[in-house]
């Protein structure tokens, strides 16, 4: 493997009395898709802005594509090698899609043609539509197109699919996959676990400005020790000691979540009958029962005790 696309050591940033990033160590390999996950306010956007050179870090070491942002002469050259999609892009509403891309294209010395970029993001038939008339998904694709038109080696996407419908989300995933296929490196933030599991080779789960877990989605899920989650609720607030659940066959962990309880289990087909038998034995009734494959969401909950989306 060649030099990593991004290396940061002990990266720190604070805004007045809020510590946004508190000592972050990351390494993103060339050609990799790296995901930064975490709840709102975890420091994802601050981190990605420091990597993009938009926000100077307060401390720590940061090397992007072998260069440093504080090297003023390298700055411009480095900027031309990056593609950046900000969390919220306000493009001029009165320009057409093609005009917007032509404008962005003019900022780079080497770039794709407007037509080719439009084709990549599947907006050819909207080339002459005003930006203000586009749908949310189309706008998001256009902002990715603006990031892609300068032939970047490293693409930053900050919550690219937040607020999009499933179909638009899939279209964006395809664009990212195409870019990766052509050898590009991607760093993205998201709070959709599904997206991270699908796109990213490695993810870092962030919470309160720190990385609390790092690895491939599969590894992180495997770190729970079991692959399935059984969630249930007891009817009429019946109380059964947690120890009894932990003693069921194949149960690795018990997590109370409000009035629900989540069990991390190895084999659903053993755990569920045992759970039902326990219910019958303790005269309690289930008001709800569901099982699913363990996801990164469960990893986050297991690590922090909080839900990811509304933490």
């Amino acid at each position, binding site marked *: 493997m060649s030099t990593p696309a991004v290396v940061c050591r002990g990266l720190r940033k604070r805004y007045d009395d809020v510590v946004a990033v508190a000592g972050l160590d990351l390494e993103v390999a060339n050609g990799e898709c790296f995901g930064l996950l975490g709840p709102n306010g975890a420091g994802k956007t601050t981190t990605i802005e420091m990597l993009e050179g938009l926000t100077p870090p307060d401390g720590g070491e940061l090397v992007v594509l072998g260069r440093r942002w504080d090297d003023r002469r390298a700055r411009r050259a480095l900027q031309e090698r990056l593609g950046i999609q900000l969390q919220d892009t306000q493009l*001029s509403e*009165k*320009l057409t899609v093609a*005009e917007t891309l*032509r*404008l962005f*294209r*003019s*900022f780079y010395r080497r770039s794709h043609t407007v037509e080719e970029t439009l084709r990549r993001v599947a907006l050819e038939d909207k080339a002459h539509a*005003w930006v203000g008339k586009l749908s949310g998904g189309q706008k998001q694709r256009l902002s990715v197109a603006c990031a892609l038109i300068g032939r970047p080696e490293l693409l930053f996407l900050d919550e690219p699919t937040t607020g999009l419908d499933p179909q638009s989300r899939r279209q964006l995933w395809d664009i990212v996959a195409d870019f990766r296929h052509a050898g590009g490196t991607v760093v993205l933030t998201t709070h959709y676990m599904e997206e991270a599991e699908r796109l990213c080779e490695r993810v870092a789960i962030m919470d309160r400005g720190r990385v609390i877990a790092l690895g491939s989605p599969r590894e992180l899920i495997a770190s729970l020790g079991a692959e399935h989650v059984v969630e249930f609720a007891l009817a009429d607030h019946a109380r059964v000691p947690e120890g009894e659940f932990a003693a069921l066959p194949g149960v690795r962990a018990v997590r109370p979540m409000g009035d629900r309880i989540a069990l991390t289990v190895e084999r659903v087909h053993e755990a569920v009958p045992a759970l039902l038998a326990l219910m019958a034995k303790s005269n309690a009734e289930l008001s709800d029962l569901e099982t699913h494959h363990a996801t990164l969401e469960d990893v986050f909950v297991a690590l922090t005790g909080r839900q990811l989306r509304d933490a």
Partner: protein
Amino acid sequence: MRDHPLVQLTLTRLREFYREPEAVFWVFGFPIVLAFGLGIAFRNRGPSELPVAVQRGAGDTALATIIKRSPQLGVQLLDSNDARAALRAGRVALVVTPADPIATIPPAPRAGWLASRPTP
């Protein structure tokens, strides 16, 4: 050349501008409307008719006829007292008293400030 960032940024600004009809109106239309409005409100009017009284007496009608020849003068015949009162109150700018030397005055006023006033 067309792909130079400065050209593209300038084009962008121009497009954003002319695609905003309100902006175009306020920049180009409104100043013209304003210029017309203010022009009409503050235009120069020609000097208005100057009221002149002719005191009643012998030869007053002939005198009044002569004065009336000038479009810039308005003439009224007044009695001596009324004429003085009007002069005092500023209702007339001048009281002309008919007397004998009138016969020697030429038919149209020629000398003095009346003759030098520009015709509108």
